[in-house]
């Protein structure tokens, strides 16, 4: 085998350069194909990572606990008690890094000029800072300082919509636990930036203040939990469900199916794209090899006349294709690595913020090449490239040496 390769390899290498223009065109086709596959995979991965990170670090976290019915009717009617007993013990699970209690409720925020519907979130600021990046994304003023803080933190988008500013007062209206309309004035103490959707949907107040305003006592609407290791997620969920069978405990994948779908479908989408690109590449490869074979019918006949076995003819054409595709893959990989390296600081898609939010992504994408994936995709393309070349190779091997003799006589 090695001896055969040593015999055929130099011949194959020189053969592919017999028609440099055709070889270069094929190399460009293969290189562009593999380049687009790798870039597509990198951006898709970045999108999936961005969607997942957005879910995990903004509001959703890894796991959420609610009272049953809350997700269908997120009001003060569906609250649960502060964790105690088995649930409190389960929240001490070693795989849970942090958790934070929240009281979410629909509310109306009213400024001097405008009225906006929001989801008001009562938070424990210290705990919230451990599970969400929003407290760190305050661009004006400061985040809430404690559970009794009486200020409100608004999203930058809502600040503009309400035509208000830091230090001004807004009025919050919401349904209290007893069914009456609760009303309370808050000073705008901070403004956060996030993505457009989050800025427009949420406003934050201190947990005790919110509970006091709505008269819910110590009750909560949500506990958000961070589990850093995704592999541990099922075990943690199982432990929590066992500890609190009456509560609704869901993972981020159940809460944000879009982000989960992106995460799960990414591999499939990459392979669909790979096949689309490969069909285009295959047309180029087969075309090149068929032309190369038809131009050298005489030569293949001669080689067989001189004692080359038909399978070696198949070998030489397959080897030529292997070299051509392999070289194209290397060029495509190099170009992809160069581009991804140039984009290592991230790609700002904030200009498409609305669209980005719609597809579940943040405003920055950080495309990265995944070496095992590069190797896997390259091997798949290379093997397929060699396989499609077997068709012209078999044609070459079937050529009777007599045809060559007839040709010369």
């Amino acid at each position: 085998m090695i001896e055969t390769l040593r015999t055929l390899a130099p011949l194959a290498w020189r053969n592919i350069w017999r028609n440099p223009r055709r070889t270069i065109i094929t190399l460009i086709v293969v290189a562009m194909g593999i380049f687009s596959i790798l870039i597509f995979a990198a951006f898709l991965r970045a999108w999936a990572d961005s969607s997942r990170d957005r879910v995990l670090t903004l509001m959703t976290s890894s796991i959420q606990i609610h009272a049953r019915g809350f997700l269908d009717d997120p009001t003060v009617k569906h609250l649960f008690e502060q964790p105690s007993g088995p649930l409190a013990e389960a929240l001490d699970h070693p795989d849970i890094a942090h958790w934070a209690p929240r009281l979410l409720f629909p509310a109306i925020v009213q400024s001097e000029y405008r009225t906006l519907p929001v989801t008001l979130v009562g938070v424990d600021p210290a705990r919230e800072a451990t599970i969400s990046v929003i407290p760190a994304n305050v661009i004006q003023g400061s985040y809430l300082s404690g559970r009794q803080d009486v200020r409100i933190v608004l999203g930058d988008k809502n600040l503009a919509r309400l035509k208000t500013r830091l230090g001004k007062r807004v009025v919050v209206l919401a349904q209290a636990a007893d069914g009456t309309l609760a009303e309370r004035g808050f000073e705008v103490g901070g403004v956060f930036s996030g993505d457009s959707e989050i800025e427009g949907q949420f406003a934050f107040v201190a947990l005790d203040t919110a509970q006091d305003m709505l008269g819910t006592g110590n009750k909560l609407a949500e506990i958000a939990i961070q589990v850093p290791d995704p592999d541990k997620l099922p075990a943690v969920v199982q432990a929590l469900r066992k500890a609190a069978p009456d509560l609704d405990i869901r993972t981020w994948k159940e809460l944000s199916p879009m982000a989960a779908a992106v995460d799960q479908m990414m591999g499939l989408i990459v392979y669909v794209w790979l096949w689309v690109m490969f069909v285009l590449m295959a047309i180029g490869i087969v075309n090149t090899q068929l032309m190369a074979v038809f131009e050298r019918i005489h030569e293949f006949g001669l080689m067989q006349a001189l004692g080359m076995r038909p399978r070696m003819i198949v070998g030489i054409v397959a080897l030529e294709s292997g070299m051509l595709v392999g070289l194209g893959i290397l060029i495509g990989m190099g170009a992809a690595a160069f581009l991804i390296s140039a984009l290592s600081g991230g790609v700002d898609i904030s200009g498409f913020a609305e669209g980005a939010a719609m597809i579940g992504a943040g405003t920055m994408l950080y495309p990265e090449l995944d070496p095992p994936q590069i190797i896997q995709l390259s091997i798949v393309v290379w093997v397929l490239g060699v396989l499609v070349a077997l068709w012209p190779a078999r044609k070459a091997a079937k050529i009777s040496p007599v045809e060559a003799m007839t040709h010369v006589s």
Partner: protein
Amino acid sequence: MCPDTKEATTPGADAPENDSIVVCRNLEKHYRQGAIQVPALRGVDLEIHRGDFATLAGPSGSGKTTLLNMIGGLDYPSAGEIIVDGQDLRALTKSDLAEMRLRKIGFVFQAYNLIPVLTAAENIEFILRLQGVGSRERHERARAALADVGLEGLEDRRPSHLSGGQQQRVAVARALINRPAIVLADEPTANLDTQTAGGLIDLMADLNARHGTTFLMGTHDARVIARSRRHIELTDGRISGDELRNT
């Protein structure tokens, strides 16, 4: 045995069969052209002996190339028997025939038929590579073979940088490199000018004389026929003459 010989001395009868490199018995080959079967060889009986320097002549369409193809294992006969160096070619697969050609047959074709991407030396080494000969031996033998055909110093030239005569000499060197049982040459001088053709004939005659290599040459060229020691005539797919000659 060759029943159609004109001379009283029948070459096939003079030599013992175990001295025969090639034995053809009642060899037939038909080609199909649409619904019609066209006979190319019609019951050829022929023996070629070790050391023969023989020419195979006849008008176009007489079956010279077909007979050379059969002997060279490039095509299967329609009927009859063909034995080359003791091997019945009918029993061999395509792969076996390729192996037989590699080990036992040297070919020189009308067109120069060198592999264009390989140098003169590499074209010769190609045969040795297929035989699995080691690198050093390959180089030495290829260079020696080129020197033998008067092409010393041209080892690294590609065919496109060699004249027609030089290319045909490389082809002869390639045909001889595997120390074949027989060299089959189909119109080897057809594309060469008079002087170059003369040089090639001298070369092949010299190699036959020095190494005892058996040559069977299909040709129209009177100069080649004049130098041969055995002349076989083929007419309409049959041997119409077979004579030994003193040159």
